[in-house]
Structures are given as structure tokens and as C-alpha cells.
């Protein structure tokens, strides 16, 4: 079992020892640490925990690992080192201590009942099924998601106003033309539909351009944060569902803005449309 704890470590490189009567304990180091020191498998490091007392102890670097892309730990973004559990316990002031256990259940066993049984047997512990644990640890992301939703609503509001403004200006520019069309017998409905169609066309074109822009922006954002955090996590995702929702929203906004702009024209008698 490997104990993985984020600890600040005092590191000092030593030349790899030749034959020893007892092999040194092993440690896995984070790729970022290996690159920055630098360290290679076979190197010896001396480790002391900040929370512990005593002299640093030597460990052999057994390998270099790439940590999982875990959004829960991205803000602290600490460098990790992994020990065998007894080695880490020996370094810490409180021996025989474990932060958590991961259990693999037999096929068909219910996670909930197993969790309750564990809590009953081991007093003071809390046991979670993986789904429950994911729910509990994702509280931060639910808040971020709600924040993004709120910003999204403001953005939609601004876009709607912008589209409506553009449509009204475009229609106002052609009030005389609309008046002439009405006077030569073109029905209100036809004028109304023409304006709405125009608004829809603008909205669809805007949505398509927006989707393209979104894809480019997502790539830039992901490349930027990959550099900042040295992670493979993706911060912005443009999925077909998101594109579809954005397109439908754009369409709805286009219809709404077009209808409002058209109403301003068809509600006025044609002879008045030519007035300045």
C-alpha cells in the first residue's frame, strides 16, 4: 500500500550508494519535482517531514510518476511524493496512523450497507460509497458551476439586448422601404416574417461564428491553464450539447428580437413609415 500525502520535504541529493547490507526504502517522486531538482530513478534523497522530529532519512527514488489530473487539488497544486505506508508512518510523529482506507467490495455487495457496517465496527470513522464521496468532494465545483450559470445569464441578457438593438436599428433604417412595400400591397404578415427571418439569419450566423470563436477560445484557455498549473486537466470544454444549447438560445433570441423589431414596424400605418 502506498501512502500519498502532500508534505513539504527537505531534500538533499546524495550519490547512489553501492552495495548495502540493507536496501534503502523507496520513494516515488512527482514528475515536476524530478524535473526541477532534477532527480532520476536510483538517486538517493534524504527526507524529513515538517511535522516530524529527528534527522532526515535516506530513500531511493524508485520511479517518477505523473499525478492524476484531479480538479480537487488544482488550486494548491502541491508537489507529491509517495512512500510505502510503514516508511511514511515512521517519519511522522504519530505512528500507526492512517488518513483513509480504500475498500474493494466483493461482486454484488452494496456500498451503502458496507459503509454502515464499517462505521459500526470502527467507531469514529465515516465510510462513503464512491458516488457519495464524489458528491461530497464536488461541492466546490457545484459552486463554480452556479457562478458560471449566473454569469451566463448576464451574458445572455447582454446578447439579447445587443441583438434587439441591432435589429431595431436595421429595421429603423429601412422604415421607408417597409412603408413602400406595405403601400404596394405586401401584407403585414409578410413584412413581419421577413424581419423575423432576417433576425434569425443574423442570430444563426452569429451563433455559428460564436461556436467557432468558442472552440478557439477553449483551446487558448486550456493551453494557458495547462502551462500555469502544469496539468492535463481541461478547464473549458465545447461539447456538441453545449453548441446545440447555444445555437437554440441564439435562435430563440433571434426570433424574439426579430418579432419585437418587426412589431414596431407593422403596428404603424404604412403612410407614417416614411416620416422622419
Amino acid at each position, binding site marked *: 500500500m502506498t501512502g500519498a500525502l502532500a508534505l513539504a520535504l527537505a531534500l538533499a541529493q546524495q550519490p547512489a550508494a553501492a552495495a548495502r547490507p540493507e536496501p534503502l526504502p523507496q520513494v516515488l517522486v512527482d514528475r515536476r519535482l524530478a524535473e526541477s531538482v532534477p532527480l532520476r530513478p536510483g538517486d538517493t534523497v534524504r527526507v524529513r517531514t*515538517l511535522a516530524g522530529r529527528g534527522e532526515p532519512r535516506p530513500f531511493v527514488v524508485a520511479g517518477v510518476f505523473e499525478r492524476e489530473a484531479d480538479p480537487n487539488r488544482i*488550486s494548491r497544486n502541491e508537489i507529491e511524493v509517495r512512500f510505502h505506508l510503514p516508511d511514511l508512518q515512521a517519519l511522522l510523529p504519530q505512528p500507526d496512523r492512517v488518513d483513509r482506507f480504500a475498500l474493494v467490495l466483493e461482486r454484488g455487495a452494496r456500498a451503502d450497507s458496507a459503509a454502515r457496517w464499517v462505521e459500526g465496527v470502527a467507531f469514529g470513522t465515516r465510510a462513503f460509497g464512491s458516488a457519495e464521496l464524489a458528491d461530497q468532494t464536488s461541492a466546490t465545483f457545484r459552486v463554480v458551476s452556479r*457562478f458560471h450559470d449566473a*454569469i451566463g445569464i448576464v451574458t445572455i441578457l*447582454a446578447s439579447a439586448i445587443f441583438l434587439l438593438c441591432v435589429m431595431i436599428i436595421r429595421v429603423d433604417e429601412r422604415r421607408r422601404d417597409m412603408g413602400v412595400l406595405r403601400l404596394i400591397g405586401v401584407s403585414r404578415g409578410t413584412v413581419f416574417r421577413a424581419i423575423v427571418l432576417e433576425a434569425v439569419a443574423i442570430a444563426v450566423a452569429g451563433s455559428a461564428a460564436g461556436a467557432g470563436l468558442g472552440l478557439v477560445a477553449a483551446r487558448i484557455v486550456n493551453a494557458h491553464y495547462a502551462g500555469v498549473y502544469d496539468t492535463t486537466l481541461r478547464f473549458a470544454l465545447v461539447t456538441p450539447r453545449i453548441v446545440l444549447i447555444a445555437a437554440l438560445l441564439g435562435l430563440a433570441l433571434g426570433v424574439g428580437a426579430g418579432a419585437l423589431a418587426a412589431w414596431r414596424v407593422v403596428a404603424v400605418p404604412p403612410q407614417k413609415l416614411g416620416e422622419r
Partner: protein
Amino acid sequence: MIVSAFLKSLFRRRGRTLLALAGIAVSAALLLDMTMLASGLTVSFGELLGASGYTLRVTPKGILPFDSEAAIDDGAGVARRIAAVGGVRAVAPVLGAQFRIVRGDSTGAPVFTVGIDPRAEFLYRLERGRQPGPGEVVVSIPLARDLGVRPGDELALAGELDVTLGRARATRRFRVSGVGDFLYDYAGEHSLAMTLADAQAATGRSAGVSLFGVATDEGVDDETVVRRIAAAVPEVSAWSTRELMGEMDKRLLYFKQLATILGSVAMVVTALLVSTIITIGVRERFGEIATLRAIGVSGRRVLLAVVVEGLSLAGLGCVIGLPLGLWMAGRLDRILLSFPGIPARISFFAWEPRRVALAMGLVIAIGAAAGCIPGLGAVRARLAQALREEAE
């Protein structure tokens, strides 16, 4: 006169102007919120850190306050050495620990507990009762409310649990001496404070201290004192409020960058909106402008009038956007404060007059700049052609 005539044209197309104002107001509000968000938590955190006068923190070497279980071993000795540093007014030791409240046969969830020196304390404000003496605790307001405890009541606290025997171990009874408003607690958090000696005895960390709060003499620069402490006590790290805010900034990089991106988008939308409105407004009055130029009005005055039109639209948009932005900031703050573990006293949005003025100034400048392009186009257009087009 020319300027006022141009401004009146905004009222002639009232619906369009109102819509444009609404659009600019929403963009200005978004820009304002993003400006407030970019530095909000850091500023608010800085204010909270210095609220009780203890502006410096001293921690075990290389770690931030309460970032690990590491402790300063010889707490009393280190406190004396820090107190002897020039410019230090007071030193307040703190030891963090976890206790469980035992009631009958049941044991509650872990409660964050601090061991403090009642004469030098900066983590809570006493609401009722008095500071804790030996064998006494101060409880947080939510804990007092939820458990119905008052000064004078007793609480049984367990430092450890015996997993095998299924019962609390090392249980000790404490008398509640007071109820405190814990400054760094999240909403509804249960916390306790006891004397440092009690906390050290209960956790077996005799002489251990998690951190020190340090108050400096009036007029002394915090950074200077930090440097002096680092030189006098090399086995610890000393942090000024500015440095801790810098660390906070690193952890909140995502929000800062998000605020920058959204703020930039808001500025682009404002620029597009104002330039669209002004461009079309100017195009509609091309003939009018040509006539004015034909009767001798200078191009500079016409350009000024167009720029003032853009400026007025953006300025009015800002006037509406400011209260809208503050209202939105309140709503967004409520969402973000539901982050687990965020102190309830902190705000993600900080009102900094200089930054707010800069943001609103930017919107107004964008309005003016947006008026320049169509204005220059109108002024540079060939007069004869513009008049002929108007006549047609």
C-alpha cells in the same frame, strides 16, 4: 448648440437609445463585477487578517498558517525571541487541534479548536462571558446555538477516539466561559477556544504552537519586522499580510483570470454596442451633417458633437450600470460564499474606489473612442456627394 442638437437626436429615437443604454449598463455592470472580483477575496482576506491588529503571522518554516499539522516545538522560547525583536508590540500563540464533543454515549463530529493565550488573542471577538481560564472553553456562536450551551455550562471533550473499544478516549470536562464570534469560521461552523496550556496537554504537544500572531508597533513597517523576525528566529517563517494576500492570490488565480477574461468580453461588447449605435446614428444624419458643414460649421465641432454623443451614452450606461453591478455582485457573492470552508466574513467582491473608477472610466473612454470612427467618417466624407445623396 451643435452638441446639444446631437444629444437631442438620442431622445428622438427613444426606444433605440434606451435599449443601447440597457446594453451598456449590463456590460458596465459585468465589468464592474469582474473588477471587484479580481481583487475582492484578496483585499477582504487582508482586511480580515489585520482586523484585530495582529498583522503578521509566524509559522513553522515554509508553511502557511494551518496548512499542515507541523508545529513550532519550543513555543514559549520562540515567543520570547519574537517579542524581543524591535517593532514587535505583542505576540499571540495559537495551537490548532481537533476535539469531539461527548454527550452521554454519543460523540459528535470533530470540532476545530484553538489553544490561545487569553491575554493576547486575535481569532475571535467575545460576545458573552469572559476569556477562558484553565479548564474552560469559549464556544462559537453557531455551536452555542445548536447545542444550547451558555456560559457556565459544562462540555465533555474528547481528544481521541478508541476505534477498537468504540468509545471516546481522553475525555475531559470543560466549563464554558464565554461565547465568541470566530472571525475565520465559515457560516455555521462549530469552533472552540481554550487556553494554550490546556490544548497542549490534551494533544500531547507540550510546548507546541501552530502559529503566532504578531502585532507591530505603530508606525513600524510590517515588512521590516518580518525581515527582523526571519533573521532573529531562522527556524520559522514570518508572513506579512501582503505576503499572505500574495499566497491567496496564487490559489485564486483561476478567479482572477476568469475576471480578466469576462471583463475584457464586457469591454468588447460595450465598444461594439456604442460604436454600432453611433455609426448608424451618424449614417442616418449624414445629410444633416453635410448641411451643417456646408453652412460653415467646422469639422472639428461636428466630430466633437459625435464624440460627446458616444460619451453621453456610455456615461449614462455607467450611471445605470453601477447600482446594477453592485446588486449583481451581492447575488454572485452569495453564490461564491457557499464554497466549503470559506470564512463567512470574507467577500469575493471588494469595493475599491480607484479600481471601480478605472473600470467606469474605461467604459466612458470606449464610448468616446467608439464615436470617433463614425465621426471622422462623417467629417471626411465628400461634401457634394453627401448633399446629393441626402437630396436623393
